[in-house]
Structures are given as C-alpha cells and as structure tokens.
C-alpha cells in the first residue's frame, strides 16, 4: 500500500467534517445527478439518440449552443475591456461601475428576464428605437442573445481583473524602452498574460449561457425551431410527464457542455505552455 487514504493529523473533527461533507454532497448533488445518468442508462444510447434526433430538438440544441458561443465571445472582449478600465484608470464613478459589474450575478434571472423584455419589446424604451429602423429585438434570436450577454457579463471581467492587478509594470516599461508602440506592447506583452484567465472566464460564461433559462424564456418568444432554447424543451417534456425524453435532452446537454469545456481546457493548457506559467 502507498499513501494512506487520510494522513494522520492532530486536528480534531475529522469524522464529523468528513461525515457532513460526504453525506450532504451525496444527498443534494450526487444522488440526483446519478438518478439522471441512471435514467439515461436505462433508456439506452439508442433511446437517447432517437429522442434527440428530431428536428425540434436539434434546432433547440443548435440555437442554445450557437447563441451562447456568440454571447460568450462578446463578453470575452467586453469583459477584458471592462477589467482593464476598472483596474488601470481612475475616474469618477469607478467604484459604482465596479459594483455594477456584479449586478447580473445578484439580480434573479426572472427579474432580468421580464425587465429586458420590457426594455426591448417593440413598445419598450430600446425596442421602440430599434423598431424605427425596422429592427425587431424581443421575441427574436437577438433578444435571446441580449439576455445571454447579460447573464454572462461578469465572468470574464471578474477573472481577468486580479490578473491585471498583478501585472508587473516593469514588463511594459521594458517593452516600451525596446521601442514597441503602446499598441504593440498591449497586443504582444499584456494580452498573452491575460489569455488564460480570460479563457477561464469565457468558459464560465459559456457554461452559464448554455444552461440559462429564467432570463431567456420571457424575451425569446419561444417559437419552436426558431427561438426555442434547449432548457425550455426539457421543461416542456417535464410538464407532459415525459421523463425519458426530458432525461435524454438533459444528458445530451451535459455531454455537449462537457465536450466544450474539455476543448477550452485543452486550449488553456496549450496557451499556458506557449507563454509560460503566469
């Protein structure tokens, strides 16, 4: 035998803390997820495939993942910009702006959903403006995109902010003394240092957007094949007590999410290796 399972320690409370941790983790998280996987296993791969392989399900899955990707990409760019402005610049209202970044985390999704709908509906403040140029936002895929941008907004900014704070200014000075323009320094010195953290934030925003339900269903219009997201499809199946189909779509979503997170993790490992450990 190699290392013991738990090293001996003078600390008290091993049994109690381990007991509470493992019991609650099992009851609240592992047992329910296990039930989903078990349901999927009973249903079988063929059954899952037959449920998922319908036009309406493919359309919903494709819509969810495509719009989540676009929203996360927008948040990647805007989040890095926000983090930079908040850390490097001093201006009146900076603290307020900094606190406002967390609002999408704190504001419940149903609240965000109805207020975004009120804003972007054809008779809303922003919706009316858009309607003048013939642009419909609420009840179209644009509306879904705006809701997904809203819920994913804090992730990149919050993961990149501490990294910008840690950057050694001397590195930028060195780049400048060597004759690099400011833009060149930002692109080739600063940005690579931010990349791993930005990618982490991107992955979190993406995962959040793919599973998002509350803020989307109000603004989406929920038209099958056009603006129906994958989580809504699960809710519809559940309301019809169609547990097998709901489980099949749920498992399909989990599998695609894990595959995407795996790819992002690989890119991250690769970018860390390329620019060294920062």
């Amino acid at each position, binding site marked *: 035998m190699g290392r013991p399972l738990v090293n001996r*320690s003078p600390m008290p409370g091993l049994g109690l803390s381990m007991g509470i941790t493992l019991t*609650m983790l099992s009851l609240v*998280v592992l047992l329910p997820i296990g039930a989903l996987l078990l349901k999927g296993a009973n249903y079988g791969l063929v059954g899952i495939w037959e449920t998922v392989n319908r036009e309406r399900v493919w359309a919903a899955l494709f819509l969810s993942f495509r719009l989540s990707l676009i929203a996360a990409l927008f948040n990647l760019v805007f989040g890095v910009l926000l983090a930079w402005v908040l850390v490097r610049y001093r201006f009146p209202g900076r*603290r307020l702006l900094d606190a406002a970044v967390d609002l999408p985390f704190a504001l419940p999704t149903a609240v965000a959903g*109805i*207020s975004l709908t009120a804003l972007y509906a054809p008779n809303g403040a922003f919706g009316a403006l858009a309607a003048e140029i013939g642009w419909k936002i609420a009840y179209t895929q644009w509306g879904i995109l705006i809701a997904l941008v*809203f819920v994913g907004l804090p992730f990149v900014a919050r993961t990149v902010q501490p990294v910008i704070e840690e950057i050694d200014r001397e590195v930028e000075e060195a780049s400048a003394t060597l004759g690099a323009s*400011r833009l060149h320094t930002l692109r080739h010195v600063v940005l690579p240092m931010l990349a791993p953290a930005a990618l982490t934030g991107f992955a979190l925003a993406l995962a959040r957007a793919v599973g998002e339900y509350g803020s989307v269903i109000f603004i989406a219009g929920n038209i099958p094949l056009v603006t129906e997201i994958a989580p809504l499809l699960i*809710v519809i199946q559940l309301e019809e007590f169609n547990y097998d189909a709901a489980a099949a779509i749920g498992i399909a979503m989990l599998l695609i999410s894990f595959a995407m997170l795996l790819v992002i993790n690989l890119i991250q490992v690769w970018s860390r290796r390329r620019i060294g450990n920062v």
Partner: protein
Amino acid sequence: MSDATFRPATDETPLARRALIALAVTGLSVLVLAPLVAVFVEALRDGIGAALQSLSHKDAWAAIKLTVTIAAISVPLNAAFGIAAAWFITKFDFRGKAFLITLIDLPFSVSPVVAGLCIVLTFGANSAIGAWLVDQGYPIVFAMPGIVLATMFVTFPFVARELIPVMIEQGRAEEEAALTLGAGGWRVFWTVTLPNIRWALLYGVLLCNARAMGEFGAVAVVSGKIRGQTATIPTTIEMLYQEYLSVAAFTLAAVLALLALVTLLLKTLLELRHADQLAATHRH
C-alpha cells in the same frame, strides 16, 4: 515638451483612455443598469399606491413568506456544509482532494433546469424513493422539501468556495497552537477558526442567500408552481407576468431587485473593510 504633456510610456494616450472609459460606461449602462432601472419604472407605472396594493395580495404575500422560509432553511444548511467541507479539505490531507473540490463545484456547471430535472427523477412520485416517501406521507416534488433541495443544489458551492481559499491561506498553525495549549476541538473552532473566517463566511452566505431567494429555473421545475402553496417570488413573477398583471409582476421583481442591491452594497462594504480576510480574488 512641457511637463503638462509628459506621459509615461506605460499609459495609453488620453484620447484612447477616454474612449475606453466611455465604451465601458456606455456598455455597462445599456446592458446592466438600464434593466435595473426598468424594473422600478415598470413597477411604479401606475404610482406607488398601485404597486404597494399589488404586494398586499394574498398570493404575493404567500410567495414572499415561502421564499423567506426556503432561504431560512437552505442557506444555514449550505453554510454548515460549507464550513464542514472547508474544514475537512483544509485541515486534513487525503487522497482525491482535487476530485472532491470538483464535485462540490459541479452544480455551477449544471443548468438549473437540469438540476430540477435531476431532483424530479430522484424524488418524483414515479421513482422508487419518491413513491415510498409519498406512501409515508412525505411528498418531495411539488412540495416544500423539493424546493429546498433544488435551492440547495444550485447554491451548494457558494460558502465552501469562499472559505476554502481563505482557510488554505491562514494555514493550521493557530489551531495547532490552541490544541497544544489544551483547547478542545469545538473550543478551537469557536475561538480560533470562526473569528478568522467570519467575514469570508458572511460573504459566502450573502451570495448564497441572494441566489437562493432568486432561483427560478430549478424551482420552477420541482415546485409545480401551485399558487399560494409552492409558488416562490420568482415563479409568482412569471405567473403574474403571463397574466399581463405587469405592475404586480414588476413590483415583486422590484422587491428582489432591492434585495440584489442590498446584497451588492454589503458585498462591496465587505470588500472595502475586510479585504484581507476574504479570498484573494475579491481584493481590489
């Protein structure tokens, strides 16, 4: 060149700086602040009297009571879990620690709807456990225990996540010293550990509570949204909104928005006053 125009080589030009600040302020105003303002504007559309009157409706009142009750049960349970998990993970060395942390973080990467689905599949009337519990007279799904479980699932990592980095940073030396001086386990916890982690604990509880009171997707799936019985504030907002009772829906939404604002205010205060006792990523 005069001193007034001197600019360090590591600064952007004033023009670029102003443009970036303007972009950040405009973007955040349109994307985040406008929806917040819209909640209150819509709630007060027919005046404050109409808004307050819609709150005194019995369904709205039942929803508020249920949401507070759910939070009062699930948040302390998750706080207890967070403390136990952080203690177990930071005070002992064991195999599979990284894996355990991944499992605790799992609920963050699972869609709330899928979380609700999992609970329905485990405890619903057509599962083995669920059927047995219904026979005993303890239905879980479409009843309060299911809502508590769904809420606990989606907020599961919050407290543990705040405590683990703080307790790793603080190490075990102070507890070991107290033990050598003859203090018992509980005494060490109450007099040494808890004072060290209290602000981080409060921070985690704050975020956990905000999410618990606002959770929609998972609760919508498991609660059955029975008016006056299992409808929480967020699911009641949905029902009112779909019945075109806009003022009532937005007034309840404004209640949750106020809760969000108070949460952000307290969180910012904690970050300003007790930054050194929070996880390193919250210090700025």
